[in-house]
């Protein structure tokens, strides 16, 4: 385990460790973080492993510095990551906006926990779905993936790095305390299965007005220290990086290009897991850990002859609007199961229009796992 994670092996790993190993496999060379339950194991593991793979680990003075460090490192040309939980994300929000605006590839792992405020650090809650998308100021798009197992912590971390590199943008891995802390079998991919994306880099300096930003097809990134004279600012800027903070037309162009960069590539980005959906009358929409209870429910329901299917967005953001709209034309009811008071629910309802009924079903006690019976009960009610 010197140069990289070994491919083609199987291990019994905690979700957070799987995430850390996934990062190494993706080529991450820089980790910055601040201690926080339930994400700390990622930092523990990488504080050892990063140095083994010729990388850097730094425990920063706070989460604000952690995100700033990984953005700085990314401009230094390395793949970088931070990991935290909800309170840390709250602190990072301003600089997440800067990462979006400066089109900086980086990965932010959020092992979600009970909230609001300090909340319940070791209770699992999918409470940061909205703050991942709307937490920083202004209009912007973000990519967020929701894993449900240690295997997915591993796989989705690699996928997050790939998306970050492809689209020059920060990408969230939206885990939670149970996924982060559970231990399961993790298969490392075969070398030939491993697909890694690398950012498109600016090769040569092309004059002071070189186009390094605001391309819907992703502009090349001028990595620092190579004589490319990168002109980077978080203030409103043009394609060449020059600041203009007074002309609304320039701001309009910047916001639209940045959002379109993600929205125009939704088909490439969005991934959905569908199960038993084809003939379903009721679809249960869930993501992350919750989807595992849903799969169990579908199994039981199908045994009882009830036509139920599972619709699970792997990509929570950008929201799979078209896919949900299509789903809403196929089923009579969509039940949205999420371990919160319905954060994605309004988006599902809006996408479904009036095509079908949309119901929000949080677990009976927030922060606990769903019992398949409570979902079944609801299904029987709506059928």
């Amino acid at each position, binding site marked *: 385990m010197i140069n990289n994670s070994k491919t083609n092996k199987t291990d019994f790993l905690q979700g957070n460790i799987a995430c850390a190993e996934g990062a190494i496999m993706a080529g991450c060379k820089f980790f910055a973080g601040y201690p926080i339950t339930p994400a700390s194991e990622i930092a523990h593991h990488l504080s050892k492993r990063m140095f083994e793979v010729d990388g850097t680990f730094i425990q920063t003075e706070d989460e604000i510095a952690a995100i700033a460090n990984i953005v*700085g490192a990314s401009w230094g040309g390395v793949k970088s990551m931070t990991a935290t939980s909800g309170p840390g994300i709250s602190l990072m929000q301003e600089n997440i906006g800067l990462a979006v605006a400066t089109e900086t590839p980086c990965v932010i792992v959020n092992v979600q926990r009970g909230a609001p405020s300090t909340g319940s650090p070791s209770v699992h809650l999918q409470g940061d779905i909205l703050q991942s998308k709307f937490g920083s100021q202004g209009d912007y798009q973000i990519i967020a993936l929701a894993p449900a197992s240690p295997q997915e912590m591993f796989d989705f971390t690699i996928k997050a790095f790939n998306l970050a590199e492809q689209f020059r943008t920060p990408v969230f891995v939206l885990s939670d305390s149970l996924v982060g802390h559970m231990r399961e079998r993790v298969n490392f991919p075969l070398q030939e299965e491993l697909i890694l994306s690398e950012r498109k880099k600016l090769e040569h300096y092309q004059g*002071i007005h070189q186009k390094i930003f605001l391309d819907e097809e992703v502009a090349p990134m001028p990595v620092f220290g190579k004589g490319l004279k990168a002109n980077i600012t978080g203030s409103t800027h043009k394609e060449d990086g020059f600041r203009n903070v007074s002309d609304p037309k320039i701001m309009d162009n910047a916001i639209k290009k940045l959002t379109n960069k993600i929205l125009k590539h939704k088909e490439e980005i969005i991934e959905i897991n569908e199960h038993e959906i084809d003939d379903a009358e009721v679809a249960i929409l869930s993501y992350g850990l919750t989807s595992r209870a849903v799969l169990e429910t579908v199994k039981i329901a199908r045994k009882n002859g009830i036509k139920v299917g599972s619709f699970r967005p792997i990509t929570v953001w950008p929201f799979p609007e078209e896919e949900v709209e299509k789903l809403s034309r196929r089923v009579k009811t969509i039940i949205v199961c999420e371990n919160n008071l319905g954060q994605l629910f309004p988006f599902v309802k809006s996408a479904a229009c009036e095509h079908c009924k949309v119901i929000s079903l949080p677990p009976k006690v927030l922060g606990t796992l769903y019992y398949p019976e409570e979902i079944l009960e609801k299904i029987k009610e709506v059928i």
Partner: protein
Amino acid sequence: MEKKINHPLQKYFRGPINYTTCPGCGNGIISQAILWAIEDLAMDFDKFAFVSGIGCSGWIPSPSYNTDVLHVTHGRSIAFATGLKLATPNIKVIVTAGDGDTSAIGGNHFIHACRRNIDLTMICVNNQIYGMTGGQVAPSTPYHSKTTTTPYGSIERPFDLSQVAISAGATMVARWTTFQARQLRKSIAKAILHNGFSFIEIISQCPVQYGKVIGKRNNAVDMLMDYKNRSINVRKAKKLSPDEVKDKIVVGEFIEDKQVPELTQEVKRLRKEAVSRCQK
């Protein structure tokens, strides 16, 4: 025949870009001091990166300097610079920040960078006020000053930023005013060569906002003359009683410690140790 004269520092600029600072601002003197220092050292400008935050000081390198420039959020420039330096230790990273940037919103990053002794050069433009946002009190504003948010006079004591840096562990610390442009240039050159965290504090005039506070509105020359009259070198100041230096600006090079391990070199050491431990 008309002769075209180029300024010797023109090559360091991205192009014909308007400077956005107010008339009489100290930024011009500081910008020159930085570039003269680099010129004196005859170093490749492409091997420098500048990181700055929000505030007037952020506009010294951004977008003007014709090298890699990262202009970030208010107060966080040191944290971005830390990541950048750790990822690319072969480039010289210079941070320009203001007094509010450094000691209010970014105070935490500032003291931790000092403690870590990471090889960054920090140029702190201390104009003793929040200029860009309209003349509010800063953590460096003298006691009893009337600003736009202290109409009755400030009731908090100011920070001595250089002393904070020394206490927090910075390994090279100097302070000058914009009046001592030549000394400043020499100290910046020394700071660039220093292998560790160097902190250069510059007391700089803001004739528009701070000028108003001290009755020298829009009068940069008077403010510079005041710096001249009140400055006292640290060597002289050491021989005087605290009362005698009360109203003075103590300037000079305070410390230079070459013995403390530097952070990026420590990282390199850890990598070697980690790999050799793996091989055992």
